[in-house]
């Protein structure tokens, strides 16, 4: 069963297909220009795909990266706007989000900091009680402390309301334990689509004497050779290895970088 299903061709995005289960938290990762925003725009229905299809079950809320809002509205006006523009509107939920992050209601949007604007757009999105919430680089304007807090609160919303969350990010180090699914895009193609934990358990880095062959069976993601040593990142699924080779699991960041290097 999936709540989001897509098969998308659009501009640089080539045949990107995936399905997301309800209640999942997906990180969409990729370099600048890899097609993340295009993909989200197509999913949100803001851009028609050139071919393929998308289907999303339920209400969708989408917060684009530039967080568009009327500059001379004040914060209270934005909530009023949300109430009038949405058939389903949960004012309490939007209001609570603003209170949690201490956003002043009377200030016009143009006088808010980037972080405060982020909170207003998130409040607006949550107020519409979405089944699927899509966020393009939601944390980019927040300081490290606020990033953690916003993620924590978003995950609480996901768990309380059974929402499905998709967010794009560059900061791979922040998605461990946060995202249970990873979509990795490069040059408009999907390099990885999987369960974050399973990906981590599959990928093992082997280090040993220089050798032109991998010491284990399984698909080699990346091989690097120094003067005396070789390193193989292999989707082998286990760390059993005979001496003199050593094996260790890699971090999500190492895993993503290896796949991007391989694709480059």
């Amino acid at each position, binding site marked *: 069963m999936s709540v989001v299903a897509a098969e998308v061709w659009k501009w640089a995005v080539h045949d990107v297909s995936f399905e997301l289960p309800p209640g999942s938290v997906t990180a969409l990762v990729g370099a600048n220009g890899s097609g993340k925003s295009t993909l989200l725009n197509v999913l949100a229905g803001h851009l028609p795909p050139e071919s393929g299809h998308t289907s999303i079950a339920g209400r969708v809320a989408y917060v684009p990266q530039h967080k568009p809002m009327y500059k001379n509205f004040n914060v209270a006006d934005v909530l009023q706007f949300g109430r009038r523009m949405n058939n389903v509107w949960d004012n309490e939920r939007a209001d609570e989000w603003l209170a949690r992050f201490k956003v002043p209601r009377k200030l016009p949007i143009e006088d808010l900091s980037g972080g405060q604007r982020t909170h207003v757009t998130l409040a607006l999105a949550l107020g519409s009680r979405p089944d699927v919430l899509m966020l393009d680089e939601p944390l980019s304007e927040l300081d490290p402390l606020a990033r953690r807090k916003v993620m924590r609160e978003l*995950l*609480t919303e996901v768990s309380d309301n059974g929402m499905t969350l998709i967010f794009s990010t560059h900061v791979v180090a922040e998605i461990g334990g946060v995202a249970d699914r990873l979509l990795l895009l490069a040059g408009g193609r999907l390099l990885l689509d999987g369960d974050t934990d399973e990906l981590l358990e599959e990928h093992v880095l082997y280090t040993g004497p220089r050798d032109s062959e991998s010491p284990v069976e399984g698909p080699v993601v990346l091989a690097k050779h120094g003067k005396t040593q070789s390193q193989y990142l292999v989707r082998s699924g286990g760390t059993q290895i005979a001496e003199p080779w050593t094996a260790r699991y890699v971090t999500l960041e190492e895993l993503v970088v290896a796949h991007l290097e391989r694709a480059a």
Partner: protein
Amino acid sequence: MVEFHVDRGSGLPAYLQLGQQVREALRLGWLQPGDRLPTVRDVVATSGVNANTVLKAYRELELAGLVEARQGSGTFVKASPGSAAPEDFDPLRATLAVWVTEARSAGLEDEDIYALLREVLSGGAQ
């Protein structure tokens, strides 16, 4: 009570990290049989870990026979991992502390000590 945290610089999947933290709390006696683990929502709200990850960790602990889920009331500690009781740890800890002091005065660094321990545990190089 356990306070969960995820080390994002670790290659260990987050759900296994949470499981490890429960096992450690059990070994050290911070969690006792009959204690209730924090609810999934509490872990999400305090640690910023995905609810699915917490559920997966609790399921793994349940399969290992360490906790049990009681319908509607939460997840409870059933048994301690390993056969040793927490009070048996104290004399062993004391012996180890003496050994570590000896090792340090012999010039061993922490890294050397970990390496030795790993070697002995894996049964290598007698």
